[in-house]
């Protein structure tokens, strides 16, 4: 029957901890507690002094940690944070580097390549995020 359909079928699912539950004994209403987050382990001393080039390896090794712990470990190491030009820029914004007049193709090559700017000549190879 149509009136027996679940009214939440197309609705947005809410996280469990934001839902309320009613006690079967006394009838009181209480909100489910937030899940307890796993405590971050302290980084070892040897990791702190490792150079920037090893950053990726280090992040891979903490892959099993919860997301907030990875950030913690990342900051503890002072790794690429100081070398990232976008560090401390607002999140969720797109940044496009300012183009300069350089590396201009000959008009013949530019016409063939589809751009007169060598820097913008990025043929699509179907995988990855860079020009290989």
């Amino acid at each position, binding site marked *: 029957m149509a009136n027996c359909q679940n009214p939440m079928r197309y609705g947005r699912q809410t996280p469990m901890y934001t839902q309320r539950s009613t006690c079967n004994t006394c009838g009181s209403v209480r909100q489910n507690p937030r899940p307890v987050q796993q405590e971050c382990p302290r980084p070892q001393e040897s990791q702190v002094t490792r150079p920037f080039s090893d950053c990726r390896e280090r992040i891979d090794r903490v892959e099993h940690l919860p997301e907030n712990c990875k950030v913690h470990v990342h900051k503890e190491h002072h790794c690429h944070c100081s070398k990232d030009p976008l560090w401390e820029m607002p999140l969720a914004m797109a940044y496009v580097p300012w*183009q300069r007049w350089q590396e*201009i193709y000959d*008009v013949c090559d530019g016409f063939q390549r589809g751009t*007169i700017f060598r820097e913008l000549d990025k043929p699509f190879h179907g995988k990855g995020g860079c020009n290989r």
Partner: protein
Amino acid sequence: MSECPCRKELLNQINEASFAVDDVKLYLNTHPWDDEALVYFQEYSRIRNEALKEYAKHYGPLTIDTASLSCEEQWDWIDAPWPWQEGGC
């Protein structure tokens, strides 16, 4: 009378210069005070215009701006092959 230039070469020159002008035009939209880009634009804009005039004199106009160069005695705008016809673009 001057020697007739190769039609294919002229068309190629027009295509290349037109593309360069179009591309530097996009760059200049965001960099209006870039002197090198302005010089580049002026140079290839001139090359393009001269090539278009040369083409119009010998093979008929490609753009309406050059129609007067080949249509002095009679209107031949529609005489040249269309781009989808053999001998067109």
